């Protein structure tokens, strides 16, 4: 048992640094040290993840956690977004001066939860990890303690609790049928069932549907998306950024892992859940895109945009369900999309955070003439918006091509056509922001400045988005490697 500790070194080191942040916060006055420690902790954890990258796929702690490239990749992605969010909150934290230590520590704790979540292979660990991340996030969402933020926090808490309950109920039903909580054991049991008895086992099927619903909340799929706009609008902007990328990526990772490992085997079963996901994908992207058209608040707009993007990701998830388990290319497409979406969306949010620090408004109209007030921030945000629309030369286009090509390969051409039409609709609202920034007259001529950590984070994201857009080969190689999942 003890020799397996090294496999959770990333989580442990991050936990240590989170505790250091809390303790130091009690004793020292200059709070500027705290983000430095938080970033250092993230880098140590990232290093630990990288050192594990080459290990053979295995399970640890009696089939509680998996060590595989899939999990490790998402851990790295979560840590990178953690670092970027911390860098971007550099000025934002001054809004809650007294609670900076708690802010960083809670962020790190939620990251630990997400990291455990992406490697968990037992329904119990999955649930515990999910709650660890969620409870930290409930607090973070209401951190501003004003009316909107508290309302958002409460909404997130109540709806999150309902989703957890649904999830638990689903898990209980699955446990009741199969007698197991570990994913590979469930898979063995399902494989052993004669097809007729599985079809006649409504309990298991209801369990599966409840499970998808529970995670649907996490990834903001329709019809479980109603919390998104209010929470995104009310939460502190760095937390909105974090919710829209890290939390969503982990949600997709865990749902992909459960569906593939536990329910990936009898062909008709995985084709069935693939169809459920495909239908949800259509609803999700259509609702997200159409409602986004009429938004006037940039955070709400990004809320709906993230719902739409979840829809594209579900196209990949559905394709994964249609494919045989062994097909790693389609999984790699999903991972690549999450990777490029994370960088793009974070980049956009960093620019939004930097701009809103100065203008104190999230109204799109107030972004008018931003290109004159801060050409670099406007350029950065434009690159990210272009990538979200899926235009060259950015990662967004390549990711869409990659994920849709997998879907076409699995005979989901109809779904891809709906998805590409949806991405035309999305151009309306993404370019609305571009138009306001470049063609509008500035509200006033105050220069919008930002700090070096914000520049660093934004520069990193934009550079990555463009580089991945032009030479995607190397990054695809990594995501293909990351498609190795324990148990399949």
């Amino acid at each position, binding site marked *: 048992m003890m020799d397996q500790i090294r496999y959770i070194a990333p989580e442990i080191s991050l936990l240590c640094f989170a505790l250091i942040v809390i303790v130091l916060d009690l004793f020292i006055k200059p709070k500027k040290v705290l983000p430095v420690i938080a970033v250092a902790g993230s880098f140590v954890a990232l290093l630990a993840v990288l050192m594990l990258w080459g290990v053979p796929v295995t399970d640890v702690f009696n089939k509680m956690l998996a060590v595989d490239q899939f999990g490790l990749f998402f851990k790295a992605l979560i840590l990178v977004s953690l670092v970027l969010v911390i860098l971007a909150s550099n000025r934002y934290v001054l809004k809650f001066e007294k609670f900076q230590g708690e802010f960083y520590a809670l962020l790190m704790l939620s990251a630990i939860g997400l990291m455990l979540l992406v490697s968990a292979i037992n329904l119990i660990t999955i649930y515990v990890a999910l709650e660890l991340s969620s409870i930290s996030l409930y607090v973070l969402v209401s951190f501003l303690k004003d009316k909107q933020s508290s309302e958002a926090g409460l909404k997130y808490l109540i709806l999150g609790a309902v989703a957890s309950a649904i999830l638990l109920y689903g898990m209980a039903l699955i446990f009741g049928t199969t007698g197991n909580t570990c994913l590979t054991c469930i898979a063995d049991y399902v494989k052993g069932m004669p097809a007729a008895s599985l079809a006649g086992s409504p309990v298991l099927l209801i369990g599966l549907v409840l499970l998808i619903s529970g995670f649907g909340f996490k990834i903001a799929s329709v019809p479980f998306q109603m919390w998104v706009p209010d929470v995104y609008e009310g939460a502190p902007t760095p937390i909105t950024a974090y919710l829209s990328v890290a939390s969503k990526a982990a949600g997709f990772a865990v749902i992909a892992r459960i569906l593939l490992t536990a329910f990936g085997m009898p062909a008709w079963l995985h084709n069935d859940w693939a169809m459920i996901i495909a239908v949800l994908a259509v609803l999700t992207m259509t609702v997200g895109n159409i409602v986004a058209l009429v938004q006037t608040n940039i955070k709400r707009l990004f809320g709906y945009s993230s719902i739409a993007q979840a829809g594209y990701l579900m196209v990949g998830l559905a394709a994964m369900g249609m494919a045989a388990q062994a097909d790693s*290319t389609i999984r*790699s497409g999903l991972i690549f999309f999450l990777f490029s979406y994370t960088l793009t969306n974070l980049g956009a949010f960093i620019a939004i955070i930097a701009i809103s620090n100065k203008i104190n408004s999230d109204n799109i109209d107030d972004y008018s003439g931003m290109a004159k007030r801060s050409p670099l921030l406007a350029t950065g945000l434009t690159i990210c918006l*272009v990538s979200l629309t899926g*235009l*060259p*030369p950015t990662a967004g*286009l*390549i990711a*869409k*091509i*990659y994920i*849709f*090509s997998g879907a*076409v*390969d699995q*005979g989901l*051409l109809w779904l*891809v*056509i709906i998805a*590409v*039409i949806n*991405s*035309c609709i999305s*151009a*309306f609202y993404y*370019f609305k922001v571009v*138009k306001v920034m*470049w*063609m509008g007259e500035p509200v006033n001529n105050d220069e919008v400045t930002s700090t070096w950590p914000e520049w660093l984070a934004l520069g990193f994201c934009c550079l990555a988005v463009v580089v991945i857009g032009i*030479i*995607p*080969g190397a990054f*695809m*190689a990594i995501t*293909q490697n990351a498609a190795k999942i324990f148990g399949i």
Partner: protein
Amino acid sequence: MNLNLLSWIIFLPVIGIVIIALLPKPGQKTVKWIALSATLASFLVSIAVFLMFNRSEAAIGQMQFEEKLLWIPAINSYYHLGVDGLSLPLVILMTFLGVISVLVSWKVELRPKQFFIWVLMLESSILGVFCSLDLILFFLFWELELIPMFFLISIWGSGRKEYAAYKYLIYTLVGSAFMLAGILSVYFITHTFDITALRGIQIGTSFIPLTVLFFLLMVGFAIKLPVFPLHTWLPDAHTNAPTAASVILAGALLKMGGYGMIRLCVSMLPQVALQYAPVMCTLAVIGVIYGAAVTLRQTDLKRLIAYSSVSHMGYVLLGIFALNQVSLTGASLQMFSHGVITGLLFAMVGLVYDKTHTRDLNNLSGLARQMPIIVVVFSIAGLASLGLPGTAGFVAEFITFAGSFTSVAVAGMKIFTLIAVIGIVVTSGYILWMLQRVFYGYPLDKYNGVKDADAVEMISTFAVVAVIMLVGIYPAILTNVIYMGIEPIAKLIGM
């Protein structure tokens, strides 16, 4: 021999962009000179490629100046460039119009740095489309062109510029959305993105009907060309775009549609093309007549030229879907000559507008005395547009009609051709009427002080006139090259 000339052609403008972007606070003149050098360099390289192009029998149907590098291994996509007789004239057209569009923008004063960055990016992306031999690369460049055009129209345009820019964006995106679905389907039927390998490939049974595949690809090209019911973005975009963008838009960008149709739809699915040729020819004829008729009614000079493009692109569509060797050659030549002629017309409209600040035909009259040089050049462009012998317009239209009239691939081609020829008559009508209204009649006192073309304007417009004349008098300079690319495609149809 491995000089990567095509990469240089495509990326010399990008080098210009980088230099302009990196200069901290460049003066207006500096920016313009850098843009001019970049486009001129790209043009010279393309001329070199034209001169070195192998015109021997053995090279028929071969891609030349090929470059191939593995680009995205996961989906088996290559950075693969090459030109043949079909694409080379269009590459030259673009590099030439690139130089012209920088020259006609010599007086731009609003944010010149950004303006020239976008113009150069537009040129790069269109060149990329014509040179790409990999579908994903092709698609990437195809989409890339959208962003600069959106900004050019919406910032430097006039009138309802934002509306026009949005309309352009959405039309193009919808087209390319279907095209992406089509391209991905092609890949999973044939397992290759290589355009050279796809020519004449036998596509057997597949998971989607070939007709669906054909139209998935066709919609994007039809919007761009534009084909009759999908043309409504064009007048708005043209009318409201700045002169340089109009020149590139009409001159080179529309040709991406015709090029794509020949390169992908006809080469890859000749049988489906044959089957639906009557439909496409009907649309072509409607486009010719409808476009010409609507043009007659225009009172805005720029909108008039824009609608005339709808009519002229109808000839291209007719030539393509008459599906024989002569008509395809005619269509290709028509793309080139329409590019230079309409490019010149837009440049001239820009000049007239700069001097008089109006494009309304009702407010213009008798300018011939006030701007004698402009009137001569404008008239040459107009006459070339209506197909006067001795100009590029005549040769192209003549070959197209000769080809489509004799085509036996499609039933009833003679009737289609006869109706389309009426378009020429109407064209003479609107061109001559327009010239008469703008330049002849009583001179208006308010335009007494206006200047004629200056040195820069004369250089740019005379250069285009020279090309129009050259192709008009010695068309073989291009048709010999075009033949090299069209011949193997015509063979596929068996006509």
